[in-house]
């Protein structure tokens, strides 16, 4: 399709596909994760005209969505994924749901059957805009090529502003092919959308008053603090008013874990000392944490001595489940900037001493046992060793399950925004593709992906993508040949009736990696661990470490679902 571009009076005529690419470039996109198909081939047909756009070919569209998600978390820019109609689009859904639950900006572009065929159950047709209503912040079906530029600009705006989230844009095949006048100046048609609002001064003043009168305050920093990149402001407030800082799972690394005011993360598998601190507090201030059930447990008995305050960019989260005494609707970073001058300098030596006492009396790590180097590894020590070897400065991706909880507990995160995990949705399989997106988004960083042997197998075909793109990700499989978290729940709550949790036919993961041309290291005893980790860290390309870990063991501490810190279990009942 030739483009006409001579005098100012001539209209710029482009095909829909070209308009897509030029708009993506305008929006600062450099990388797209995708897999082609019939309905989206016209888009792929123009990629060769746009060398600024890098396309990363995956092996399953779910990986495209999850890679875009990982990319967005680490760069702060919307991740872009592309799929064809029908099965290509439906394969994105788990990835979109991951981004939706964790407020991650992603723009998904799907091909659709030709406009005339829509609604006729055509080949590879799915109503993807209907199907993704629940898992997208917003979505579009574009009917005219003239609308593509405005719709895509709206999609990026919605994805990245306010509470970020995934936006899907569905484009029929004939619309990709249709010529249209390419205009960049059509205003966005979003009269009902207000991205980021400024918190009313009275709300911030009320919060400041609560802080200034509290004796035993605790900050709970959530994903909102990380999305807002409020690291400096969070630390300044905590230091000025001497407030200990706990985090939600997704808030981990909002504060460096070696900061004296850092007190870990509470909740179902959080540190006992953190849950106890919340229980003793007289004020809990959430900055971008949504009082999720993993932290709150039994609402009636959550932090009974504390007033609660909540700063959140999404008004729907304020007073959604836990009733708060002060709600501030705004961006966490902006609110902190307003709040710090209003907060009094404070000294709380007794309260901070109490934090140290709790840490001492309820340590996370079990006392170092005398175990020989020939014994099998245990989950927590693998993570602790990784933390040592990397100095706590790597970016850690995880899957979902026991290994995820151990990673959150035992890795000492010192780099801001360095835990990339599917917290809200809890999607197994996230470990492999997320690391792809993270490494591409942060090419200079060392990226480790902690994998469960169960989740790894959901997306392990993406090792091909890793190899093809020469991404130096280090995949560490915590291999116990089981769905570990399932075993734990069946052990604790289903009378040890172990059903459908043993993987008795796992492949030799090291051989599998080598089949993809990826360096593999097998670790089967404690003595081999540290040298293997160092070897992997120093290798310039991708590495897969297959770490055989011991008999299935349970993650502790644990507060069973819907309970409170009174029911917290610190040690196993019997060894």
């Amino acid at each position, binding site marked *: 399709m030739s483009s006409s571009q001579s005098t100012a009076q001539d209209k710029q005529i482009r095909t829909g596909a070209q308009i897509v690419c030029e708009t993506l470039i305008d929006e600062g996109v450099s990388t797209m994760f995708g897999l082609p198909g019939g309905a989206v081939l016209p888009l792929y047909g123009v990629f060769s005209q746009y060398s600024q756009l890098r396309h990363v070919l995956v092996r399953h569209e779910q990986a495209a969505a999850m890679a875009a998600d990982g990319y967005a978390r680490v760069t702060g820019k919307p991740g872009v994924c592309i799929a064809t109609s029908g099965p290509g689009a439906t394969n994105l859904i788990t990835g979109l749901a991951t981004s939706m639950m964790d407020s991650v900006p992603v723009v998904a572009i799907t091909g659709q059957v030709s406009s005339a065929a829509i609604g006729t159950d055509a080949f590879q047709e799915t109503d993807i805009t209907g199907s993704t209503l629940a898992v997208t912040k917003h979505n579009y079906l574009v009917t005219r090529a003239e609308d593509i530029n405005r719709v895509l600009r709206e999609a990026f705006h919605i994805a990245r502003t306010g509470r970020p989230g995934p936006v899907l844009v569905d484009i029929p095949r004939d619309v990709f092919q249709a010529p249209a006048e390419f205009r960049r100046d059509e205003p966005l048609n979003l009269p*009902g959308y207000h991205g980021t609002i400024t918190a009313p001064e009275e709300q911030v003043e009320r919060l400041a008053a609560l802080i200034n009168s509290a004796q035993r305050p605790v900050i709970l920093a959530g994903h909102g603090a990380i999305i807002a990149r409020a690291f400096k402001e969070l630390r300044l407030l905590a230091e000025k008013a001497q407030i200990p800082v706990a985090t939600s799972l997704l808030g981990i690394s909002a504060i460096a874990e070696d900061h004296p005011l850092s007190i870990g993360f509470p909740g179902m598998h959080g540190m006992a000392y953190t849950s106890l601190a919340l229980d003793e507090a007289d004020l809990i201030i959430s900055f971008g944490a949504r009082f999720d059930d993993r932290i709150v447990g039994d609402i009636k008995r959550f932090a009974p001595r504390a007033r609660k305050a909540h700063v959140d960019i999404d008004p729907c989260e304020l007073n959604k489940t*836990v009733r708060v005494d002060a709600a501030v609707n705004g961006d966490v970073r902006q609110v902190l900037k307003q709040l710090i001058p209003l907060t009094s300098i404070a000294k709380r030596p007794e309260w901070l001493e109490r934090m140290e006492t709790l840490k001492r009396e309820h340590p996370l790590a079990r006392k170092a046992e005398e175990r020989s180097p020939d014994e099998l590894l245990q989950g927590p020590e693998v993570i602790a060793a990784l933390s040592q070897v990397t100095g706590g400065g790597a970016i850690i991706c995880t899957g979902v399950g026991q290994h995820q909880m151990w990673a959150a507990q035992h890795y000492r995160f010192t780099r801001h925004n360095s835990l990339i995990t599917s917290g809200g949705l809890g999607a197994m399989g996230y470990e492999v593709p997320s690391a792809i997106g993270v490494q591409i988004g942060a090419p200079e960083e060392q990226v480790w992906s902690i994998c469960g042997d169960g989740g790894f197998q959901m997306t392990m075909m993406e090792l091909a993508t890793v190899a093809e793109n020469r991404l130096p990700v280090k995949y560490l499989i915590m291999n116990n040949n089981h769905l570990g978290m399932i075993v734990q729940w069946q052990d604790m709550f289903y009378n040890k009736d172990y059903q459908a949790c043993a993987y008795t036919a796992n492949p030799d993961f090291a051989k599998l990696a080598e089949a993809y041309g990826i360096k593999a290291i097998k670790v089967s005893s404690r003595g081999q661990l540290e040298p293997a980790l160092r070897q992997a860290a120093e290798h310039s390309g991708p590495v897969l470490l297959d770490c055989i870990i011991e008999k299935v063991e349970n993650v502790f501490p644990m507060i069973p679902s819907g309970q409170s810190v009174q029911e917290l279990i610190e040690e196993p009942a019997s060894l």
Partner: protein
Amino acid sequence: MADPDNSTSGASHSESHTITALVQDIPGVLARIAATFRRRGFNIASLTVGHSEKPGMSRMTFVVIGNSSAINMAATQLERLVEVVEVQDITNQQIVWRELALVKVRRTPENRAEIGEIGAIFRASIVDIGAEGVTFEVTGGTDKINSMINLLRPFGVLEVMRTGRVATRRCDDSGQEDSEQGI
């Protein structure tokens, strides 16, 4: 001090609230709103939608049943949707509201006088007549329409078509353009 019962889903009783929303008139907006309500478990007693005085915008009127915090949450969730421009809970404000029903009744020489009288009492108009029966159009409150239908039942009600509620705040007497507060 701190309230031991943190929960927002308190034991307060169910109320019926009227909520209006101004939404962009774009394909799919109704589906998105319905999906949002269903997903969050909000109880919608009725819903009407039609073009408003603003070009490209429609107005929706919902009757939502729940306790006050559930209703607050419904309104906030609605407002968060991209195509929804404005949401107002007008329950406790001075409002004018109406529903409409078309009621088809079997009509015989024996009952026509009585049916006619019932229609007149409720200020309903006859909009269609035939061998099968007669169709009344009645507007007003829910109770009024319910009463008329109940009175017609013994004669043989063939069909009832009801709309949801449409509502608007009463005209402001203070002379100000956009008064947010009810009287």
